[in-house]
């Protein structure tokens, strides 16, 4: 059977050598390598559930009066777009399940990309020869954010309308081209031309997903060509890759991960409510609600918009740069600019290392990189958290204005402090050769009979030291990384 199939294919497209190579392709075993796979599998589930939803969705601004299955909205004026999403949720069997799985999958997709990117950054996996693939990955992250935003904007409930209003404000604030560019996208002023929803739909279901799919293909093919990186360890060198071959071990495990991701997403989609649009109601330009929050991956932008000083430079009574530009446009540009440029910055000013690297750094191996990364991560995380500090006010009565004033300054001070602390910790760990989470490597100092001081007994975690020593020729890795 196998032979006949292989012969059939090989005689026609000559795939046997490629297949043989593919079946023996080696994957290094480390848990952190699975995070990127989770993003891949979430994307597959997004495509599958998204196709289903597209078959029911109506991208129309046209106003109708609701007479569908949900009582509290009976007789309300709303757009056909919102009505069709209500129908998906209430009238189409399994429609709500698929819609919620789609929404959860989007949240997990972006989360997995971010964690994957953190792994790549802090282990130096972006170094030569992998810079191109790193940029492709960052580009996919940059595409995933508007893709998710468009997705929940299409529902046209009150929250998505408020989000679109903010997007309108941010685009309008771009210096020089703001008004022109915004009108091209929206087809006029908020809430947009009649064809605006079709435009969003085409972007959401065709242009951006195809772009992500294409980049994903190149991303994976490049990995196949270069092979994975690996952590240092016994038998692992810059010249080889040690791990489980594709067939049968890794294939089974990876498919297991695919279905585990599907299981989690379907259980979430079935059991944990997400974005109940019928509770928010339809959007009108004149309506708003308190306590509005975007999906998590846009929280950093709402934080940036909320934290910004009321700074709007103007000349002779005319505004030069409207305020939403700083938090909504410049801030993400700076963050993505940092991510894109980091390989250059590191090579030019920090490591001056132009060599090829197949073995990963541990975060402590390059204290400056880790410290810069931790500082930027802290900066973005603080702004992310500040985006939801109104909840602290509403729930715990912590004065909102005071919090904002505090963080307007702390957002600069804390990352700087984190930079120095992280760098010091990394240097200490690197010098000491110990692992922060595994055992204590100090000794008990006792006074001797002669009046001097001496370390009593052996360090508690003797095993750790021995292992580090054993691995040192390969770069000094921990046993745990082989688990």
């Amino acid at each position, binding site marked *: 059977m196998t032979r006949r199939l292989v012969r059939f294919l090989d005689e026609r497209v000559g795939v046997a050598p490629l297949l043989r190579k593919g079946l*023996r392709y*080696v994957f290094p075993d480390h848990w952190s390598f699975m995070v990127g796979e989770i993003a891949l599998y979430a994307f597959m589930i997004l495509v599958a559930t998204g196709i289903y939803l597209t078959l029911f969705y109506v991208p129309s601004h046209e106003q109708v009066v609701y007479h569908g299955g949900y009582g509290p909205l009976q007789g309300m004026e709303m757009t056909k777009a919102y009505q069709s999403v209500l129908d998906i949720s209430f009238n189409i*069997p399994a429609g709500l*399940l698929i819609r*919620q799985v789609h929404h959860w999958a989007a*949240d997990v997709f972006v989360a997995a990309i971010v964690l994957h990117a953190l792994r790549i950054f802090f282990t130096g996996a972006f170094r030569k020869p992998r810079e191109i693939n790193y940029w492709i990955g960052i580009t996919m992250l940059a595409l995933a954010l508007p893709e998710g935003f468009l997705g929940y904007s299409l529902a046209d409930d009150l929250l998505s309308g408020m989000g679109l*209003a*903010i997007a*309108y*404000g941010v685009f*309008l*604030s771009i210096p*020089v081209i703001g*008004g*022109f560019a915004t*009108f091209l*996208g*929206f087809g006029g*002023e*908020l*809430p947009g031309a009649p064809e605006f929803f079709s435009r969003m739909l085409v972007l959401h279901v065709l242009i951006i997903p195809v772009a992500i799919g294409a980049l994903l293909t190149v991303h994976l093919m490049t990995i196949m060509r270069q*092979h994975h990186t690996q952590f240092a360890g016994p*038998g692992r060198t810059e*010249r*080889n*890759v040690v791990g*489980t*071959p594709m067939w*049968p*071990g890794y*294939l*089974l495990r990876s*498919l*297991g991960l695919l*279905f585990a991701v599907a299981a*989690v997403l*379907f259980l979430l989609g*079935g*059991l*944990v409510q997400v974005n109940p649009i019928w509770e928010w109601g339809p959007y009108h*330009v*004149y309506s*708003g609600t308190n306590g*509005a*929050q975007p*999906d*998590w991956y846009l929280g950093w932008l709402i934080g940036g*918009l909320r934290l910004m*000083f009321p700074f*709007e430079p103007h000349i002779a*009574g*005319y*505004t030069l740069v*409207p*305020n939403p530009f700083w938090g909504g446009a410049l801030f993400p540009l700076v963050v993505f600019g940092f991510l894109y440029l980091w390989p250059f910055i590191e090579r030019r000013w920090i490591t001056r290392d132009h060599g090829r690297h197949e073995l990963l750094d541990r975060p402590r191996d390059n204290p400056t990189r880790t410290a810069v990364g931790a500082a930027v991560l802290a900066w973005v995380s603080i702004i992310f958290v500040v985006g939801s500090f109104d909840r602290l006010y509403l729930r715990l009565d912590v004065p909102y204005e005071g919090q904002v004033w505090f963080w307007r300054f702390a957002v600069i001070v804390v990352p700087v402090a984190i930079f120095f602390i992280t760098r010091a910790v990394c240097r200490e760990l690197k010098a000491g050769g110990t692992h922060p989470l595994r055992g204590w490597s100090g000794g008990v100092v006792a006074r001797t009979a002669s009046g001097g001081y001496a370390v009593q007994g052996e360090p508690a975690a003797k*095993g*750790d030291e021995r*292992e580090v020593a054993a691995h040192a020729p390969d770069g000094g890795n921990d*046993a745990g990384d082989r*688990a």
Partner: protein
Amino acid sequence: MSGLRRALTAIGRFAAFVLLFLIGRRRRGRPGRVSDEPPPVPGPHEREVPSGRRAETLVAAMLVVCGLCGGAFVALYFAYDDTQLLGLSLGLAFAALAAALVVAGKAVIPQETYTEEREDFGDEEVREEIESLVHEGGEGLSRRGMLLAAGGVAATGLGAAVVWPVASLGPSVGDRIRKTPWRAGRYLVDAEDRRILVDDLDVGSFMLAFPEGADKELLGSSINIVRLRPQELDLPRERAGWAVEGVVAYSRICTHAGCAVSLFRYPTYERTSSAPALVCPCHYSTFDPRRACKVVFGPAGRPLPQLPLRMDAARHLLAAGGYSGPPGPAYPRVRLQ
């Protein structure tokens, strides 16, 4: 609300995952470390063929569970269309399949560690050959500069022509962004299109209003009317007549990012409460309605445009003119007031 809760649940779940992972690792890691032998260096290929009748039975059982859960999903679809049960059945089907595959991968099939040598990219000869191939393509060219310049002209002209239709996607901005339906003499109406009496508003209340007969969805249409005590008002001198018995009107669209300014606070006890304010729920820009909606907190860069009001003989509210400035979010070169 749900965003934060969602984020917290996600963080909690991730923390639990990490915790379980670390505990699991510790348990497996410790005993090995106590022994005095150095960790073995794996050979190039290691292969261990398991004999796992029990694991095989387990895998088979999991696969059967998967099939049964899938069947349950189909049955539920027809018999009892409930999102929770549908999600549960399909989720468990996937979970059983995942478990079967992982158990099979770890205990049924041969366990292998394989070492593959990396391929060296780079053969300087091939690169040189490519370089000379490229250059040979231009052999015999005498006026390279002229051709390049002409090519530049072609690229610019054709590029512009190809991109230009994009301009049809939207109207030109021009005056559109400043236009509003408000004119002197236009009546204010509520959401049900009824004209509004001054006496409909108590001191300390606010209300959403529109221009009579105009499209409510225009950015320049909706206003907030607020009734304060006349002596509280502190409007600029030239706007002294813009309020009617303490009723003032401002654009409802935030000058920051275009959300609806839908929150109003009024002191319940003046010594301890905050001063009256109109607040945008998106980024908490806070405007003082007593002082022409000056920005008192938050990121907005200019006040909400004010609409001058007057009333007719029957005490209905109507506009006495247009806004004091362009309504809606700021754009480059917007007039401040």
